């Protein structure tokens, strides 16, 4: 059998690096449905998973793919699916099931330009609000945004770890450019990869309360076959997991579901600061657009303009404290993203008028050029 961790130096696409990251994290089940530009994640999993004792299945549609990974996780396997915009829309119903039943799993969205079929082979970052609010009802979600093939490898491991730790679905919001570009990826020795496993139910089976908050507000989990005879439902439920159709039960369940993410924001939120200490103008960006942002910072600095960048690594939950803090020091901010202003709305909300915030957006199909960012900074802030 080939190893789950392909230690060594490779030249691989973001999609392939994502699949390898999943395997390194301990993923043993992938339920997928092909869609450009995410197909290569599934293809890689289809030949790698059986090699390491896992299972790949191409389901009949994305609805089934999402349902299958929730089921597989309930049966004890770390599980994943990958998709792009239209498929992501189909997954929303069962994403909500994973949220309310607190089932760890990872969904990779290799974004393309939409709406609808849009530009299937060209990138965008247009599903960021769908990631946040696509399923129905209130909920909190964790979504990450890698900026390179190397990073997608590590972030996929991180996504699995957060999923297991917080018993929640975690989204990796990448895009066509990262998914399809080939880059050097270094995969470390298996012993250097830290993986987290869900906290399992312990103790007397008749005393177990499947949805009673444990550490961090997260209940210890019993998998199917562990002997705990759990009941798991998408209905509002009490600590036993039993349907409870009351206002009080809804409030108690929602408070814990939202709280386990909100109260652990410091542990969950990741970001990177680039030349931010003395910056007058701050670019807020994420994913592939951070490559634009970095080039723009370097070019602006060369021209003597003090620009810095805050790169969101976890886009949801949103780094609002950090943005507020930056807004109190900067003269102006720009959001750079390949959509017409989704994360920008959050930035504006957090800045709350302290300084002007401008959007450098694009409807998708291409990257944003660093020149456009610099031009906007000069024009809008009169630099």
């Amino acid at each position, binding site marked *: 059998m080939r190893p789950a961790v392909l230690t060594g130096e490779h030249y691989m696409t973001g999609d392939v690096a994502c699949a390898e990251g999943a395997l390194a994290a301990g993923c043993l*089940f992938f339920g997928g449905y092909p869609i450009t530009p995410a197909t290569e994640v599934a293809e890689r999993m289809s030949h790698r998973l059986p090699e390491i004792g896992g299972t790949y*299945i191409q389901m009949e549609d994305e*609805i089934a793919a999402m349902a299958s990974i929730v089921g597989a996780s309930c049966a004890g396997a770390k599980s994943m699916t990958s998709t792009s915009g239209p498929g992501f829309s189909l997954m929303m119903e069962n994403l909500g099931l994973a949220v309310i039943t607190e089932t760890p799993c990872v969904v990779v969205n290799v974004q393309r330009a939409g709406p609808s079929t849009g530009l299937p082979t060209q990138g965008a970052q247009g599903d960021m609000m769908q990631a946040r609010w696509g399923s129905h009802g209130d909920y909190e979600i964790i979504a990450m945004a890698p900026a390179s093939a190397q990073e997608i490898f590590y972030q996929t491991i991180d996504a699995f770890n957060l999923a297991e730790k917080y018993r929640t679905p975690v989204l990796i919001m990448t895009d066509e450019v990262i998914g399809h570009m080939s880059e050097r990826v270094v995969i470390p020795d298996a012993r250097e990869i830290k993986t987290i496993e869900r906290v399992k139910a312990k103790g007397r089976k008749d005393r177990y309360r499947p949805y009673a908050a444990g550490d961090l507000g997260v209940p210890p989990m019993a998998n199917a*076959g562990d002997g705990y005879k759990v009941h798991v439902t998408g209905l509002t439920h009490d600590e036993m997991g039993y349907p409870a159709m009351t206002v009080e039960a809804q409030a108690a369940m929602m408070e814990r579901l939202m709280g386990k993410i909100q109260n652990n924001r410091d542990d969950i939120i990741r970001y990177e600061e680039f030349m931010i200490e003395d910056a007058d103008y701050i670019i807020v960006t994420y994913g592939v657009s951070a490559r634009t942002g970095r080039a723009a910072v370097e070019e602006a600095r060369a021209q003597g303009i003090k620009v810095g960048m805050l790169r969101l690594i976890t886009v949801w939950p949103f780094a609002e404290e950090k943005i507020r803090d930056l807004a109190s020091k900067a003269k102006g901010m720009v959001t750079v993203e390949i959509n017409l202003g989704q994360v920008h709305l959050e930035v504006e909300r957090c800045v709350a008028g302290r300084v002007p915030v401008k959007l450098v957006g694009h409807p998708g199909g291409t990257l944003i050029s660093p020149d456009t960012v610099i031009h906007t900074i000069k024009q809008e802030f009169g630099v």
Partner: protein
Amino acid sequence: MTTAQEAQREASRHPLDDLLRTERIPHIWCPGCGIGTAFSSCLMGMKESGIDLDNTVMVSGIGCSGRGAGYVKLDSYHTTHGRAIPFATGMKLANTDLNVVVFSGDGDLFAIGGNHFIHAARRNVDLTVVCVNNFNYGMTGGQVAATTPHLAKTTTTPLGNPDSPFNLPLLAYACGASYVARWTTLHARDLTSAIIEALANPGFSFVEVLAPCPINYGRRNKEKPLDTLRLFQEKSIIKNDAHPTELDVDWERGVVLGTFVNNPRPCSTDMYDKVCRLEEKPAKKSAA
């Protein structure tokens, strides 16, 4: 407790109590509903089959029948509308030691969930799918289903159903199910035997249970609760091995019950192991 109390408690125990979440009873099913009978035959079958109940799960979708998972004292999963089968498929493939039983209704499994049913049957995923067919959407108040007979009245076909219903055993057979049977709630013993056979079949097993829904279907089609059972008694024809094309639900002509398919063939995981889990292939140069 006095001996008399103990005796009384013992007498009031139901033989299936150990398989029920008794604290969840009473259930939500209406008086005269067939789901309870279908459910208890299903549990009886699980018990009598001798399968390891610690490794047995029940998965349901949404609807009246979908509440089955909420009453069984097994690992039990009440999922989304129509998605019990793909959820169950993920479970079974991720842990092949599990016996996975899908218990749900005709609306859930065959309208919204139709695509999943046909593909799981095609793959012969090792699941036992029990479909309580009461010819309508009971929980949402009696709308037309994919199984509603032509001309039958429902809340959304007030002048009669213009469409034709599925012949479910034919559909299951055509898609590759390796075990197919149909009974009514009046044939509880046969139904239990069918469940036992279905659990023993190492592939996709489908058991259709015709069941009355007096509250929503019966009322609109001038069938009093007992009329439906009388229909089941007088109009059913037991004919094992009947050809699936003869299995339309036609109460004028008579409805055929029995075991129609019992042809075990390699299930999806066996095929996956055989085809995809090859012994070490010669490694190509470098990975990626």
